[in-house]
């Protein structure tokens, strides 16, 4: 017990671990934008492939080779039009897409010189140029008099809203929070998207007109699904994932144990990073992008030792190889094949976690080996995924715990469509959400003009 007390006494959580300069440096943009010459040189590397594999690899089907050629000929504006035509949130996708698993993975340059064309950065170059010039490409069709309610103001919803507005329908978005953008606003690692890009992008999208966002409107709280369903001609549900998965251990509610998504939001919304409490030794449990984002950021906030523990092996990790490398370079240690057994607590404060080594049995099921080890932890972050939480009043059929939709993103209820992370078979990607919104808008339009 004395030994335990000693450990507890060393629990070290404090704010302002770094000086102002260090915060600035640590939270500088992950990829700096391309300069004009850099963009030309990079665009020149594109082979303008036939039926380009990058285009096929993009969930929204952006004509990648086409827009890169336009950049190469000095037509950034034309390039942006081509991008936004397929994906109105192409600006944020250019920043947050795991391009190494999408377009850039498909780039034929990988086979030739192991370095794909920097498609993400080129896309950003073009869209940023158009936004800086306040260049709008799309006009509203004449007003149809049809009204569509959209629940949530994340990427899927914004994409859907813009598509509907182009067809002349009027859109009302009901957003629970005080800002739109969804995960772009609240869920990203801060260095992935700087400044107020998310809100600037929303303004750019809203400029088409006749899209109203009502903030502070939470389903089942101050707005009812049934009444929206009654009052509007169609409804699109883009509410994302409402709850966070638990470890299923005791003591998950003690001090120092946190949901990664909550803390990521705090970082993202923070006015001053020095105000955030940061443990000296931090443990993160999970294997996806959220786990990487929290581990990296808490390290950049000044934590001494950050250990990310994943229950399966490296290959099974959801986070890409590039993301794993990135967090390791920033000083995060990754331990593969270990699962948490016990959260160690004293005086309602976590001070460590006991893990057990795992392996795959003959049937490839995960099993504990019996070998255990302890990691001291002033803070423990849970990042083992999120789940869809059905809002009251909705009777949408679910599949694998998320909303069942068809290829047009139509749900089981008449006049209700859905998209983004809330739907089944989603890839939990911003770009997939953009495609959901686009497809739903087209489908809703077809229904409305019948």
């Amino acid at each position: 017990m004395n030994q335990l007390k000693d450990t507890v006494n060393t629990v070290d959580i404090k704010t302002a671990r770094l000086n102002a300069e260090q915060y600035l440096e640590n939270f500088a943009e992950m990829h700096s934008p391309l300069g004009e010459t850099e963009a030309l040189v990079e665009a020149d590397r594109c082979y303008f492939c036939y039926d380009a594999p990058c285009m096929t690899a993009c969930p929204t089907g952006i004509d990648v080779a086409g827009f890169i050629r336009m950049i190469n000929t000095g037509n950034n504006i034309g390039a942006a039009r081509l991008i936004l035509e397929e994906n109105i949130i192409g600006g944020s996708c250019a920043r947050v897409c795991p391009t190494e698993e999408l377009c850039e993975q498909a780039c034929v340059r990988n086979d030739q010189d192991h370095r794909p064309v920097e498609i993400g950065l080129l896309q950003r170059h073009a869209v940023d140029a158009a936004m800086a010039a306040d260049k709008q490409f799309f006009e509203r069709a004449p007003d149809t008099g049809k009204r569509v309610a959209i629940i949530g103001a994340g990427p899927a919803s914004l994409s859907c809203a813009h598509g509907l507005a182009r067809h002349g329908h009027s859109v009302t978005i009901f957003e629970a929070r005080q800002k739109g953008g969804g995960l772009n606003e609240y869920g990203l690692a801060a260095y992935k998207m700087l400044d107020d890009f998310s809100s600037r992008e929303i303004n750019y999208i809203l400029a088409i007109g006749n899209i109203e966002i009502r903030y502070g409107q939470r389903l089942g709280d101050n707005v009812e699904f049934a009444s929206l369903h009654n009052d509007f001609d169609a409804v699109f549900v883009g509410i994302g994932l409402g709850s966070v998965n638990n470890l299923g251990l005791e003591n998950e509610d003690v001090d120092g144990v946190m949901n990664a998504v909550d803390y990521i939001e705090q970082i993202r919304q923070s006015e001053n990073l020095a105000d955030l409490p940061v443990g000296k030794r931090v443990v993160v449990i999970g294997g996806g992008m959220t786990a990487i984002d929290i581990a990296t950021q808490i390290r950049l906030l000044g934590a001494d030792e950050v250990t990310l523990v994943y229950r399966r092996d490296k290959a099974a990790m959801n986070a890409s190889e590039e993301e794993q490398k990135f967090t390791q370079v920033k000083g995060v240690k990754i331990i593969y094949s270990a699962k948490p057994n016990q959260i160690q607590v004293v005086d309602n404060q976590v001070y460590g976690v006991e893990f057990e080594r795992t392996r795959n049995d003959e049937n490839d099921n995960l099993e504990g080996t019996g070998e255990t080890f302890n990691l001291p932890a002033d803070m423990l972050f849970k990042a083992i995924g999120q789940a869809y939480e059905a809002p009251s009043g909705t009777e949408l059929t679910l599949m694998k715990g998320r909303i069942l939709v068809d290829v047009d993103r139509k749900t089981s209820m008449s006049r209700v469509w859905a998209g983004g992370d809330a739907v089944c078979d989603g890839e939990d990607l911003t770009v997939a959400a953009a495609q959901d919104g686009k497809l739903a808008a087209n489908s809703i339009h077809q229904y409305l003009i019948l």
Partner: protein
Amino acid sequence: MADLTSNFIGIKSPNPFWLASAPPTDKAYNVVRAFEAGWGGVVWKTLGEDGPPLVNVNGPRYGAWHSGDKRLMGFNNIELITDRPLDLNLREITQVKKDWPDRAMIVSLMVPCEENAWKEILHRVEDTGADGIELNFGCPHGMSERGMGAAVGQVPEYVEMVTRWCKQYSKMPVIVKLTPNITDIRLSARAAHSGGADAVSMINTINSIISVDLDTFTINPSTGGKGTHGGYCGPAVKPIALNMVAEVARDEQTQGLPISGMGGITTWRDAVDFIALGAGNVQVCTAAMTYGFKVVDDMIAGLSDFMDSKGIRSVDEIVGKAVEQVTDWQRLDLNTIVKAEINQDSCIQCGRCHVVCEDTAHQAITQMKDGKRHFEVLDEECVGCNLCVCVCPVENCITLRELSVGEVDARTGKRVSGEYANWATHENNTMRVS
């Protein structure tokens, strides 16, 4: 170790790389830097008549066409011949030649088409100790409007006449520099030959406009809102120059006339192309103006290493080595049948071979096999045109295979005979010679 020393019409230099008459050879300072860097010789920037020097524009003199990655592909200029006093140039030429006796010193000349004007300047140049002269009959801008440069070079009779004067009034070897701004370069070369020229050098620059400024609709470059055509050079003109060199090298009337080759030479490979097509040495300007004089290091080392690898001991062994392999179209063997072949191991699946063949050629390359992206040549459609080879970004991924004798061409169903046959005797040729 290969011997790079060059003896071009009796003019010796440690290597065959001369700087062409142009801005880099305008004055002693530049030329000395060039010699220090290792250039084998220079053709001093063109001297004109004695008297008040010419003036250049005070706006831009150069324009460039770049590739997307900002490499300079084509270059043009509107600079005139030297704008420094004749005396000064002659003094500097004398001094530099004295200080660098092993380097070739050629003086480029351009004076009005009058016998006395040429007579007057020739003996003054001779007094400098220069190794030879080059007659600038090529400059397409500024001077041609004054009846000099290309205005002379475009009239074979004038070329012959002035060449004759130079041979008559000077003991120095005479190199006649030819303009490409004509229909058939052989006529000028023949004229120089008839006039007694020791050699021709080619090509001078090509009339050109680089581009239009799309904001102002002036041309690039422009001075005071106006621009004019300039002389085009750089990598983009090399194929044009190579053809002209080859035409003169294989022309019956000029065969054996030494050629100093130039036009877009940037690397030792370019130089070997020119030499193989008949040039006895080469001249360079744009590459130096793009990268500085140090580029000659690669040219010297590359040529030397190339010669070593081929067991070639002197540059003269390469001169004209490819000329015999140049012929007229109607002499090409119609019974040589080739088919493109795609190496699936090195194919990166960009599909460019397919789309260009499909859109613009012979629909002879697949895009799909068993539902998968796959590019393969269809022998029954392939005419062997080489377009796919030209557009493939992977070195040696697509190659042409020559069908062997007895093999059946899947496109025509005919067996390869192995007998030579050309258009001149082809049955479809109504003007055939029997």
